[in-house]
């Protein structure tokens, strides 16, 4: 039976590539930025321009589809996921990296129907790496199939997370003590490259064994979740329970054993939800 969403995925891949071209062109000029929810939550004209291009390109082909996209939500659009075919978009994941020209910047496009993720596309444009995965079809980077490391031992694991400013000092403490606990196990090491989407691709490709993050958004996670699971990995809630796309948190891991060990080590802290109001605080 033909995959009803294959055409959508093919269109998405072409659009992701075009978006990457726009981003690379923008990098030839000086990048000015503004801030959103905090002094370190950056946004640029390119974020908005790229998102507008992605949405309008998709709408031309699929005019009844729905969208949850970072800058549209920041401008007041709803981020509620319905049963409708829905594109979940981060036009530039790693805006801070983009502002600085630090070489990890990605376009992330996920797609859900009846609230189930069907495919994910992440284009790490500065590296020219196109990561794709369709449900049941495996995960690929530039056409080469991806497989997680299958590492089950946390003391042999490389763990990715992000190191970000937290306005609430108590939450800052919890974020840092989570890192302290992982480093003290000791895991082999911690990495932080500055983009959730690329972090998940690194787990999917076997280059790291786990990624955990509290405080990202559904548009950072949607595509990566498909890519990691299709590469043989697992995604969990930060507590070890089932993953929740609107929860603003996840563990993506090479194995359930490593994922659950991380869940046991780290403490959750409040981060809001994408399906509630006032969800943009960092």
């Amino acid at each position, binding site marked *: 039976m033909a995959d009803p969403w294959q055409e959508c995925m093919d269109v998405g891949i072409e659009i992701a590539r075009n978006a990457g071209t726009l981003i690379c062109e923008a990098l030839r000029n000086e990048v000015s930025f503004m801030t959103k929810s905090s002094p*370190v939550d950056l946004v640029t004209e390119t974020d908005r321009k790229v998102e507008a291009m992605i949405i309008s390109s998709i709408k031309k082909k699929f005019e009844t589809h729905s969208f949850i996209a970072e800058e549209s939500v920041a401008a007041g659009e709803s981020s509620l996921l319905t049963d409708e075919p829905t594109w979940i978009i981060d036009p530039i994941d790693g805006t801070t990296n983009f502002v600085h020209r630090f070489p990890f910047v990605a376009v992330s496009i996920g797609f859900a129907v009846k609230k189930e993720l069907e495919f994910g596309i992440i284009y790490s444009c500065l590296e020219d790496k196109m990561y794709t995965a369709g449900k049941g079809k495996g995960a690929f980077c530039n056409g080469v199939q991806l497989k997680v490391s299958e590492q089950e031992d946390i003391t042999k694991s490389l763990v990715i997370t992000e190191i970000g*400013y937290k306005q609430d000092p108590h939450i800052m403490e919890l974020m840092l003590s989570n890192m302290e606990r992982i480093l*003290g196990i000791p895991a082999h090491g911690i990495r932080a490259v500055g983009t959730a989407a690329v972090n998940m691709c690194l787990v999917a490709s076997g280059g790291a064994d786990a990624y955990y993050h509290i405080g990202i958004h559904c548009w950072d996670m949607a595509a990566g979740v498909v890519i990691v699971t299709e590469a043989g990995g697992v995604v969990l809630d930060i507590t070890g329970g089932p993953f929740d796309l609107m929860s603003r948190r996840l563990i993506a891991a090479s194995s359930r054993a490593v994922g659950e060990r991380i869940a046991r080590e780290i403490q959750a802290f409040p981060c809001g939800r994408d399906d509630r109001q006032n969800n943009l605080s960092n």
Partner: protein
Amino acid sequence: MTSASNEEPSANWGECMEAAVEIARKAGQVIREAVKHDKCVTTKSSAVDLVTETDHLVENLIISSLRAKYPSHSFIGEESSAAGEKCCLTDNPTWIIDPIDGTCNFVHSFPMVAVSIGFAVNKELEFGVIYHCLEENLYTARKGHGAFCNGLKLQVSKETDLSKALILTEIGAKRDPETLKIFLGNMERFLKAHVHGIRVIGSATLALCQIAAGAAEAYYQFGLHCWDIAAAAVIIREAGGNVIDTSGGPLDLMSRRVVAAGTQEMANHIAQMLETITYERDDYNANNL
């Protein structure tokens, strides 16, 4: 010795640098091949200080090739030092080598792995070659001749404001509770100063190259070695940046610590905020790293 070479001894260093580039590329090829296979991993100073057969193989390849061309030169290499060779810098032309910077990344096939070859004469750093082998990016700099990546000139960021900075660091091999508290305390201080972000990529030399490229404003670390600093210091300085000690004083190549930044102001901001994590110097007893 001809009078020409007495007046311009540095002409010889250009030839040395070409040799470094050639052997770095060869070493990179070995690493690119080895990363696809299982690695035989052991540990050195701690459970997370990893070394593989490829580290040894590549270091032997580099040193034997350079020694054949320059038999009177001295060599400081990571794995030779681990095996007990003295790690002290004399006036003699000295090659300072990290065969695989980012061994933990190499073990995991995490894509930040580099070969680093520095060169000093009369204890002055003369040139540096860093080869990011998985992406095939070659970073080079020779004193007085600029810094380049794949032939494109490098220029550091001119940012002086800490609250607009992207900061890079590495964790180091010590994982005892006291060290971790200081490490995280340093990061917390920068986060509270509203730096744009902190990144950890697992390779000191490649992180330092990002400073030279202007892609981040500053780097600081406790626990790295002279073979991690030697090449990168030349590359950053030739790209217009500053490399100093974490105390704010001049760089001490054997001190196991560094601050590097695009501007002096940024380097000073960073140094002022750091609490020290002490590691044994590279030029103490050669058996202790």
